[in-house]
């Protein structure tokens, strides 16, 4: 357990004159949840795309299970076990749970040239996988459009795990969700980590990140402000470190003065 599953050492990424990422370092072990915090424009998206193999870093190195690795394409990253769940989830609302779950990677059966989509097997796996998360898909052929936002997020995560993710990269998985839905997603993330996955949770919501994270990396204007273990940092400190945290507390004070916040 001492070996890091994934390691970013001094990763930098430039777009012309713009420094999108500078000397970002982070390490992640099996079963660990690292929350990547940062305001808009902090470089979160660039970091995700570097993780997912969309961008190649201009400086620094990526180590997977101790081996130096270069991702040539998103598929490369996938093959290495980096499963990225983007904000748009890549789900089609009009299609069924099963058809979404296996979209692009359908299980086949039958003789060569006449291979058909093994719907029964796919249905069974999809229902089983969703059941493991505690989402009772009454019928795996029901449209994804009928599912709640949290359930959809869980479906996308579950799909990434099923197709071999060892490191889960979750891009703002709770940003569009209410409290109940968000907690459902976060519970699932914790469960996935407890089963041995490493999770990188990207968010700007400290309140969602703090309860589930083991460590926290704060990005600000393309630079890492450091990685902190949970025991070393409080929720308020994290909030303060993020750009805008200061402004938020100012806003809170101002609002209090206006008598809008009663508690």
């Amino acid at each position: 357990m001492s070996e890091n599953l994934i390691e970013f050492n001094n990763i930098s990424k430039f777009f012309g004159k713009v420094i999108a990422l500078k000397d970002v370092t982070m390490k992640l072990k099996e079963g660990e949840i690292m929350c990547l915090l940062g305001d808009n424009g902090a470089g979160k998206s660039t970091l995700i795309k570097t993780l997912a193999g969309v961008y190649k870093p201009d400086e620094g190195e990526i180590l997977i299970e101790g081996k130096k690795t270069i991702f040539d394409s998103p598929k490369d990253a996938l093959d290495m076990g980096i499963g990225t769940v983007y904000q748009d989830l890549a789900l089609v609302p009009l299609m069924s749970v099963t058809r979404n779950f296996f979209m692009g990677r359908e299980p086949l059966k039958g003789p060569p040239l006449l291979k058909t989509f093994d719907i029964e097997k796919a249905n069974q796996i999809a229902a089983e996988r969703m059941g493991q998360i505690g989402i009772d898909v009454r019928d795996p052929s029901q449209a994804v459009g009928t599912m709640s936002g949290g359930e959809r997020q869980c479906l996308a995560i579950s799909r990434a795990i099923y197709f071999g993710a060892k490191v889960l990269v979750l891009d703002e998985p709770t940003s569009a969700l209410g409290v109940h839905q968000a907690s459902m997603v976060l519970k699932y993330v914790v469960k996935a980590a407890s089963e041995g996955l490493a999770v990188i949770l990207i968010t700007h919501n400290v309140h969602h990140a703090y309860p589930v994270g083991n460590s926290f990396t704060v990005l600000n204007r393309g630079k890492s402000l450091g990685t902190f273990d949970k025991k070393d940092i409080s929720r308020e400190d994290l909030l303060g470190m993020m750009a805008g945290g200061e402004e938020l507390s100012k806003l809170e004070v101002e609002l209090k003065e206006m008598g809008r916040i009663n508690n």
Partner: protein
Amino acid sequence: MSEKAKSIASKKSSGQDERLQNVSKLKLLLNRPELGALGGAILVFIFFGIVAGDTGMFSAYGMLNFLDVSANLGIIAIAAAMLMIGGEFDLSIGSMIGFAGICIAIPAIYWGWPLWISIVFAFAMAVLVGYFNGILVVRTGLPSFIVTLAMLFILRGATLAITRLITGRTQVPGLRVLIENDPIAWMFATDTFKWLFTWLGSMNLIALRTDGTPLATGIPPSVIWFIAATLFATWILMKTRYGNWIFASGGDKNGATNVGVPVGRVKISLFIGTAVAATIFATIQVLDAGSADTMRGNLKELEAIAAAVVGGCLLTGGYGSAIGAAFGALIFGTVSMGIFYTDVDTDWFKVFLGAMMLIAVVFNNYVRRRVTESK
């Protein structure tokens, strides 16, 4: 603050019981895309059964008549439906019908090619036109509505110009004599199950001509092609990986691309499908009439799209069925023929067609909202 409100509003998802399962199955049935068209077809048959039940519309001859019309439309409607599920339109279907017709007739009559080579040539041209449509849409990212509208004019114009250049007129007759002994033409020109009709005739179960042969001689080739196309398209959509890719490409192009679906290839193949279906339509008609006409297939693309929409296809893609489109075509074919058996002036057919489409679109919109809205 608003997040709390949202979470209270959102329903809990755990702890469902079996009672809900029953409800959801019923709902699922109601959500099937072809349900509306099936209901519509039943209504149409009941209507004509009452209004024209004693007129011969439902005699063997009458039924084959409206089935033939439905089947011809159905062949292109199914291909149009698959393309629509894949998220695109093809407005050049009608022009492709005319173009395919002269691709068969001119080589066969004026250049002395064997008929079967002319037919193969027409299909090769269809693949080319479909591929060109597809690659234009995929590469430029322009709406297929515009790209294929351009193709509608280009193909129709070229058909007219080329035919007049080579033949000096706009019709090419004289094909009928070439059908006999041709290794391919029979597939598009032979009535099947003749023995059945002869037997039915001999039992005096169906109407006979004065010479004792049955009035209805067999199932026309269009009906066989129509049934085959419906089964094949349904099999593809429901049972194959490619079918899943069609739904995915039309449902969410970006999402599908992100998980590895070759969206461009899927769309191009569907455009080839509509052009090939138009050529099947054209071949059957040309061999049946024994002549090609440059204006053949005019406005057929709109009828095909209308049938697909009545059959439950969403204009925005990602949803629909081949069986639905088949029923849509059956509705149009039945009404267009059935109207002759009633006292209603045939001028009203287009009014019906339009009204039917409007109702279908409103209904589909409702279905879509039900399917996509989260609980």
